[in-house]
């Protein structure tokens, strides 16, 4: 599906576990890293490679919130809105982002640059409010800091 290099990587992952099925989460991570999201064809490929039913793979892709079934924006912003962040202004942060990007949580800007999501506790409560921008936590946010950050993105 993604070439021999990719398959080699998958073989190395599978070797770390007593059963191929156990490699499901890490293999899905690799698929998502390579393609940006996990589509139906990839699910089928993974199912065959790990010897599980395609429905099982789909069941896991939909169970775990970090697997994307559709492409997200170049910059994926996940705003924590759980209690500690709420106490420190995550609702205002979310409203600010909605107004600035002119999208609602779950949506992507028409140019594909930003997508926004409301997520549950990211384990960064001491530096609330915060969001995750792609792989990195952005912490101790203020609205001004958010503006500067978004403007600084390439």
């Amino acid at each position, binding site marked *: 599906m993604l070439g021999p290099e990719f398959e080699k990587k998958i073989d190395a992952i599978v070797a770390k576990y007593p059963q191929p099925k156990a490699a499901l989460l890490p293999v899905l991570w690799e698929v998502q890293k390579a393609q940006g999201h996990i589509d139906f064809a990839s699910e089928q490929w993974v199912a065959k490679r790990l010897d599980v039913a395609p429905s099982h793979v789909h069941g896991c892709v939909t169970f775990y919130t970090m697997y994307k079934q559709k492409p997200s924006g170049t910059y994926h912003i996940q705003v924590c809105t759980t209690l500690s962040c709420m106490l420190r202004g995550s609702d205002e942060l979310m409203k600010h982002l909605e107004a600035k990007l002119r999208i609602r949580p779950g949506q992507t800007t028409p140019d594909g640059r930003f997508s926004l999501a409301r997520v549950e506790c990211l384990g960064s409560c*001491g530096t609330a409010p915060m969001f995750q921008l792609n792989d990195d936590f952005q912490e101790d946010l203020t609205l001004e800091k958010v503006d500067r950050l978004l403007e600084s993105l390439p």
Partner: protein
Amino acid sequence: MERILTRNVGKEGSRTLAVYEAGGGYQALRKALSSMTPDAVTEEVKKSGLRGRGGAGFPTGLKWSFMPKEVDPKRPHYFLINADESEPGTFKDRLLMEEDPHLVLEGSLLGGYAIRASVVYIYIRGEFVRGAEILERAIAEAYAKGYAGRNILGSGWSCEVVVHRGAGAYICGEETALMSSLEGNRGYPRLKPPFPAASGVWGCPTTINNVETVANAPFILERGADWYLTVGKAPKNTGPKLYCLSGHVKRPGVYEAPMGLPLHELIYELGGGMLRDDRALKAVIPGGSSVPVLRADECEVDLDFDSLAAKGTMLGSAGLMVMDESVCMVAAMARIAHFYHHESCGQCTPCREGCGWLERVLARIEDGRGVPQDLDLLLSVSNNIIGNTICALGDAAAMPAISFVTKFRDEFQYHIDHKSCPTGTLAGRA
């Protein structure tokens, strides 16, 4: 006081093996592997009184002692490190993994040795991308130096260490759900018994410990259980503890103190006091969002397992969420209920449906659409969740709900009677 668990935090190069070794790192592993049997390691940890730091406070040495003393080659032993830190209000394990990954690793290997494991899996929540990378680098360094892998330090014991990333599911922090997830399934909890020590991941004997729990092991082994017993409140609340302070305080963050730190000292000394001096303390959730809330007048308490249990709540994961008088308790509880409804795995009807009921009823009370029966309805739904599910997630939604409604009943009633909020705000604001 001496910083123990966080002694390397903030140090230049704290993630590297060189710095960890310079501070005496891996001496405990050397000592254990060269001069102690696995059972002697377990005995020492038992004697130290160490209790699990993930939430339940179960005695760690006792848990290790449940594992079979002989390894059946067809059923290898597995040691799972629960790094799925997801309990709202909790952010201590991330600090340890990102700032001192070798401490986590040495503790994991000590536990692995004690239970005769052949593989340690560190199950880290998917969002901690950087934490997973840092751990991977530390593991590579440890392998290169012979601290992990085949014939560790010439002892004859071999143990692999594998980082396994989750993918966004709070429930995977529950130990049986973690095992399901590691096996490549949805994170569905399983009934106990069988307990993991008898039949855990892949049906093999398994022990699961929290990151902070295993981070205590190197100190217990190196300095001895007798020393450990002098830290904190012996005999049942021993050792150093990481407290996660968040919400309306001036200096939120992770603070290390001997177990039994007075709550007031954490908020007013370490935490610098309330965020705004003109707003009084209203309530504290002491152990992550799953535990009953304390009213301000209940906050004369030491932060340890038994003192908080005596107040009808729990130390849990020591995630302390501080709320000032501007906070609407209906809004706060509605947010907590939203979390549990979102995170319920859906296997058990009382939790799947009950958490939704809690969320919806709380939302309508907050919106001024509550009806007089709603408070009793919340209590009734909660009481029908508790004890009726496979795992504790449902209880974790119901216990705070009961405590909020009971302890702040007037405020809930006000929303229903006046169709408005007595705090005058939708929710607490900084």
